């Protein structure tokens, strides 16, 4: 074990998670990477505010989200949703087993409020406990819980709507195929 280890040596281990969290917030890869870069510079200069032995990922995510709210949130609204458009262009036709389409999910996910989206991604994908997420976002645990619950509920509502559309579209396709077959026969 190294004595006098520099906590900054550990930052590199969190780079991929930082990019994932930044991408979840901005939904734009160029903006996400700019944000990670800014956050790294800031983390480097503020390393004294990190207490060794505590959760470094939570500490880095706090800096990242502060960067987002102070600089990048506005930029996010101004840039075209290139990634989303690309994803939509690349997305496949609806699955007939009713599996939720990534495109529909992304679309619904982007409609969540920033505060809901970050809480949901931290807890639902980032492996953060409610307590760690609360600490990262600088709010009470109860606030995180209610943001996560509301976010889930809203996603269900948004996706139920698009699910209905997909089902209707599928019905139309099926009917057409059936009637085509009839014509052939």
């Amino acid at each position, binding site marked *: 074990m190294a004595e006098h280890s520099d906590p*900054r040596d550990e*930052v*590199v281990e969190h*780079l*991929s*998670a930082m*990019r*994932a*969290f930044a*991408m*979840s917030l901005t939904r734009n890869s160029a903006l*996400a*990477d700019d944000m*990670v*870069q800014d956050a*790294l*510079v*800031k983390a*480097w*200069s*503020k390393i004294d*505010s990190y207490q060794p032995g505590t959760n470094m990922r939570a500490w880095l995510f706090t800096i990242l989200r502060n960067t987002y709210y102070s600089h990048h949130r506005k930029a996010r609204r101004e840039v075209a949703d290139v990634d989303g458009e690309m994803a939509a262009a690349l997305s496949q036709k609806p699955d007939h087993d*009713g*599996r*939720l389409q*990534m495109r529909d*999910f*992304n679309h619904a*996910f982007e409609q969540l409020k920033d505060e809901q989206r970050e809480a*949901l*991604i931290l807890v*639902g*994908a*980032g492996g953060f406990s409610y307590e760690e997420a609360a600490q990262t976002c600088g709010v009470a645990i109860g606030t995180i819980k209610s943001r996560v619950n509301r976010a*889930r509920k809203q*996603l*269900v509502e948004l*996706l*139920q709507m698009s*699910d209905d559309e997909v089902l209707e579209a599928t019905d139309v396709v099926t009917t057409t195929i059936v009637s085509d077959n009839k014509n052939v026969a």
Partner: protein
Amino acid sequence: MTQDRRNSNLEEAIEANLKRVYEDVANQDVPDRFKDLLNKLRESEQTEKTEPENNDG
């Protein structure tokens, strides 16, 4: 399909897609620019060690 059944399928799909959104990026190789940046920060610090800066953003 009952509404309940449909909702629980939807909830499972939401959890799975949530993880996918995050993990798709988390599993990517980190672009060199970030490791380069960390190296640069370290180097610039070593050259500026005589003149410590105090930035609290």
